[in-house]
């Protein structure tokens, strides 16, 4: 099936999505897989925690506490 992806392929797409926009067909395949998979949503969440952590690190929130945790869901295709 053209939209079927393994966890390995999905993990690669999720990592790639941190740095570039995915083609439409891959975005669809990703959503289909994530809706049916137990493991990959955890991996997706780990990447979003990393994204949030790197943002706070860059902004040095650890030394100016408070802005932490305001928006945990900034867009993956941020640049």
């Amino acid at each position, binding site marked *: 099936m053209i939209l079927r992806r393994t966890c*390995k392929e999905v993990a690669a797409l999720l990592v790639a999505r941190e740095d570039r926009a995915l083609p439409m067909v891959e975005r669809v395949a990703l959503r289909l897989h994530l809706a049916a998979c137990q493991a990959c949503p955890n*991996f997706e969440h780990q990447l979003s925690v990393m994204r949030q952590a790197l943002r706070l690190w860059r902004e040095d*929130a650890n030394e100016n506490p408070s802005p932490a945790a305001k928006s945990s869901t900034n867009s993956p295709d941020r640049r």
Partner: protein
Amino acid sequence: MNLESQLAQHQAYLLRFARLQLRNDAWAEDAVSETMLAALSKPQSFDSRSQLKTWLVGILKHKVIDILRQRQREVSVDQDEGDGSEELDALMFKADGHFAAQPADWGNPEQELSSRQFFTVLEACAEKLPPAMGRVFLMREWLELPSEDICKELQLTPTNLYVQLHRARLRLRECLELNWFGNRAAT
């Protein structure tokens, strides 16, 4: 407090970032000294005390980019670098493409993401990336350069850039899992 002693308070912080980005202590010290000199030479261009650090980091980023440019040949990525990334992939996945072990639930680590220890671990993990890969990753995540600029500065093709970033993210994930999120679950 005069500007000079205020600058001294931020020196260690600036040096940490410069080292992570440049992966060379001598270059990092140059970048920080030049930042200090630039700050002292035009103190009028910064106003309130709360912004001193932000202002210094802004200057430092420019100095660091200058150094990366001057050292272009030395920082270029060896495209055939064997860095063990295939092994990492093989550890993570079974032959049929399933996860070898279900990725852990990292929860909602809002508290932890404002703790100093967490960022110490994060920096240690970034430091453990191979130098060339670490520079690419930091250019993205700390200097926040657009992809095209990173490719230009390091003479990388877009494909190679994405391969480097991909490997760096997987390694960072693995390192955080081992040294922070995994341990946390056990305690």
